[in-house]
Structure formats: C-alpha cells, structure tokens
C-alpha cells in the first residue's frame, strides 16, 4: 500500500504536469516552472517577515503569491517588448536575489530555506494523510487531484480560445477572444499547479514533468489533442518507470522519475529520427525506380 501511494502520487504529478505543460511548450514559456522554483524563496521570506512564524500555511501562501507575481511580471515585461526568455531570466534572478538579500538582512539566524520549508518529498507522501468525506488518502493525493480537476476545468472551458490565442493571437484578438484575461488565468493556474506540486513532491520532479512529457509529445503529435494525450501518457509512464528504477538502484524516487522523463525523450527522439531516415530511404528508392 505504501508503494502504491507513492506510485499514484507520481502518476498524478505526471498527468497533471503533462497536461499543464502542453500550452507552456507551445507558448515557449517552459522555463517558467524553473523560474518559480527559485522565486518562491522571495515569497517564503516575505511571509516570514510579515508573520514572524514558519507556519506551513503562510509559507505556502507566500510561495503561491510569489509564483503568480513571477508569471505576471514576466508577462508585463514581455508585453512591453522584451523577449519571453529574457523576461523570465530577468524576473527570476531579480526576485531570487531579493529573497537571498532579505534573508541575510532580516532572517539570517532562522533556518529558512526553500528546500526545508516548502519542498515536499515524494517518499514521505504515504504517511501524511487527510480524511475528507470518510475517505483517508495522503494529503498530496488530495491536493494533486484538486489541482488536476482545476486544470481539466480550465481546459474544458477555454480550450478553443486558448488554442487560438496560442497559435494566432492577432486573429484571436480581432474576433474578440480576451487574450490578456486568458493569459493571466492560465499563468495563475500554472503557478498554482507548480506551488502545490512543489509542496507535495519537490521541485526537480515538477520542473521535469512540466517540460519533458510535453516536449516529447510535441515530437510525435499531429494535433494539439494528440499532444495532450501523449503528454499525459508520457508523464504517467515516466512516473512508473522512474519508481521501479529507484527501487532497482535504491536511489531518490523523484530523481529517478525525472531521469525517466529524460530517457523517454531521448528514446522517442531517436525512434523518430530513425523512422524519418527509413522513410527518406524508401522515397529515394522509389524515385530511383
């Protein structure tokens, strides 16, 4: 049962992040999760300075606010004409530096680091339980299920609009799609997803799962719906494969799941190149005849 809960948590992270990652990749914003994993430091330091406690709820709230702030600042810089990647880079280094500075100034004698206070560990998930409606499940599973539902809801409501806004924002704007509203809504859901998942399973796994499965799916998908499907499948598969790799070598579970994401990407890339090569060989052979 213990192992099963860990695998279920991994699956949920893989599926949720796989889903959330698709539009991130298509909008060339995949590094936003990595940025958020650093800027949350600013959030928890601010939360500490204001409340003077290390209480988990305030820390989480601070982190969530910092995540949303990151996404908004990036968008603000981007819409004033700065490239997307440069905007992410500038915002995340500035907020991270501000966090380090604030610790040194106001909290140098408290054990305040992101790893300790915010980041969860997937191996400990089975023991931290919550009971709702007479069902007892690990807290992480509850939270991730909620996040997954919110993400599915957002997609069902705005799928068509998001697609238009992503691929042809000018056209979308001209027919009255509220692009800004969609963007900020999407970024809020991404920050929410990232911070909640950080709290459950830690940063490495979340960043890997947000980028890897969607990037892999992008290699082989012919449509955006297909991309969603494959991204979720790859995310889930990486979780299961990673768990058994970790069991085999007795290493960090989150680390091996992230490694499995990378392995799947490389194998898919190789398989795709190989198919391309064979198809080209066939075409030239036919042309020869």
């Amino acid at each position: 049962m213990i192992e099963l809960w860990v695998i279920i948590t991994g699956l949920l992270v893989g599926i949720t992040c796989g889903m959330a990652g698709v539009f991130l990749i298509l909008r060339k914003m995949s590094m936003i999760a990595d940025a958020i994993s650093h800027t949350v430091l600013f959030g928890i330091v601010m939360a500490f300075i204001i409340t003077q406690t290390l209480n988990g709820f305030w820390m989480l709230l601070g982190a969530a606010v910092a995540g949303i702030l990151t996404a908004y600042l990036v968008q603000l810089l981007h819409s004033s004409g700065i490239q997307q990647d440069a905007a992410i880079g500038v915002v995340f280094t500035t907020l991270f530096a501000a966090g380090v500075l604030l610790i040194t100034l106001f909290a140098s004698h408290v054990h305040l680091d992101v790893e300790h206070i915010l980041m969860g560990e997937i191996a400990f998930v089975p023991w931290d339980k919550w009971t709702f409606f007479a069902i007892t499940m690990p807290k992480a599973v509850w939270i991730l299920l909620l996040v997954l539902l919110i993400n599915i809801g957002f997609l069902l409501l705005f799928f068509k609009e998001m697609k238009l806004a992503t691929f042809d924002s000018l056209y979308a704007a001209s027919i009255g799609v509220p692009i800004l509203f969609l963007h900020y809504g999407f970024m809020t859901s991404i920050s929410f997803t990232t911070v909640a998942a950080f709290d459950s399973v830690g940063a490495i796994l979340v960043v890997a799962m947000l980028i890897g499965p969607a990037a892999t799916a992008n290699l082989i998908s012919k449509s955006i719906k297909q991309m969603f499907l494959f991204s979720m499948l790859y995310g889930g598969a990486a979780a299961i494969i990673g768990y058994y790799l970790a069991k085999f070598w007795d290493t960090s579970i989150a680390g091996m799941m992230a490694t499995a994401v990378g392995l799947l990407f490389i194998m898919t890339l190789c398989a795709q190149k190989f198919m391309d090569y064979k198809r080209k060989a066939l075409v030239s052979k036919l042309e020869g005849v």
Partner: protein
Amino acid sequence: MVMKRFLGVMVLMMLLFGCSAENSATEKKEGVVVATTGHIADVIKEIGGDHLTVSALMGPGVDPHLYKATQSDLSKLENAEVIFYNGLQLEGQMLDIFDQMSKDKTVLAVGDRLDKAKLLDSEDEGLLHDPHIWFNIDLWKQVVDAVTKTLVAEYPAFKDDFKANEKTYLEKLDELQAYAKKRISEVPDKQRILVTAHDAFNYFGESQGFEVRGLQGLSTEAEYGVKDVQEMVDFLVDNKIKAIFVESSVSDKAMKAVIEGAKQKGHEVAIGGELFSDAMGAEGTEEGTYVGMYQHNIDTIVDALK
C-alpha cells in the same frame, strides 16, 4: 502509426528496466528501530545490543539539511516499530510525517526530552533552539537516558540488558569527557578559539570552553558576504589564531578565501583539519561511532591549536 511508435518506446523501456530488485531477506531480530541521524542510531545500537535491528536514514557524510530520501527509506519507515529523531527543527521537512506516524507507533524526538534550560538559542531568534545537541556530552547523556527509557517501555523483555548497556555506555561517555578535558588542557586558554565554516559547534564551544566563530549562518541559503570574510580575517589576525577548520559536510571554499586574506595581512593560518559536524564517518570505521567521531574532533582541534 504514432501510437505504435509510442508503444514501441514503452515496451523497450519495460524490457530494459523491467527486472525489479529482489527483496533481500533481512535478518529478523526482536525489534526494528529507525533513527534519522547516524548519531542517534549509534546510541540505539549501543543500548539495544543484539536485540534490535537499527538503521539510520541519513548515512555517513549526509548533511541533514540536504538529506534526500531513497526508495528503501520507504520500507525502513514502514517496518520500524520505534522511530527516533533529533528534533529541534533539524529534520524540518519530516516533522509533519513524524507527527502523523506517532498515531500508529512510538516516535520520539530526543531533543524534546532535554532540559530546556541547557539548550542554546539559535542566536537572536528566540523561538528556535540550536539543534546540534550531540556536541554537548552532558546533553548527549540525557539523550541516552531518553532512548533507554523509550526502548525499555517498548521492549520490556530486554529491560535488564538495556539497563546494563546504558550503564556501560554512560561510563564510556564519562571517559570521553575526561579525555576531552585532558586533551584540551594542552591548549593555552587564549588559543581556545574554534573557527569553522558554519554554526554547528556552539554546543561544543559552550561545554568544552571554546569561543566559537562560524563564517556562515545556520541557514545554508544565507551566503557569507564580503564583510563577513573581512571581519573573519581581522579576527584571525587580531587573535593570532593558528588554525581554522573545515567540515566534512560543508564546502571549504570560503575558508580558503579567509586564509588567503589573512596571508595578505602577514598572518599565516593553517587548515587544522576536517571536523565531523552534521554527519559522522563511514560505517565500520572509528569515526563512524559517536565516541570515535568526538575523539577525532578533539584530537584534530587540539593538535592544530596547541
């Protein structure tokens, strides 16, 4: 077509890694006990003798602040009948789960059983105590007492053995304290200043009569500033300190900068050696036990400063 390719990749992965590890049958003794740090695990081994199977989650050389769980920690925690941890916020990320687990099994934070008056505050943050309690031998004896009481309550059948082991171990600790005192008397009073990379040695300083200076604060994310390095250099030069120490679980880059700085002011400082701060030495070696670790630290410090 695409689906086939996806399935192909999956099957290939399964073939590569499908073979799962065999469960090694562990020798079943009477009790299964897990501790977080090597220090506490060592105490349990001394008290439990042959009656207990003891394992530590954090292995040799692992900084508790940077500890990452491995897959086998799952079954260690699940199979444990009793769990001991340091407490005082040392295992920050695990506190919630220990709280939850205490509903089903005995879980003890040894730090909570100590005389609060003897604990050091984490400098100006009054709420939190310094967690590095193992460097004060008197406090460590209280830990031994708390561990023994808990084990006796859990496994009453072995009460006599546990009590006898406790007595022997406490004597060993007294010998250790006497040894430390004797060695430290070789160092002139004015030279009893211990300079290390991070703030782990405050209990050591308090109980053994050293002034302790750390370059880095308690948090690993608070970087040392240029001013910290400057002040440290001036401190070394003013007090004519002979040697400073690096730690087994912290990078020594900053200490090298300090030594370089002192050299430019015409004062030679040596690296006195490596101290065990948050972790102990490799299992099976002398430094892999609490007593051996403490002796190593005392010898290293005294030999460099006398």
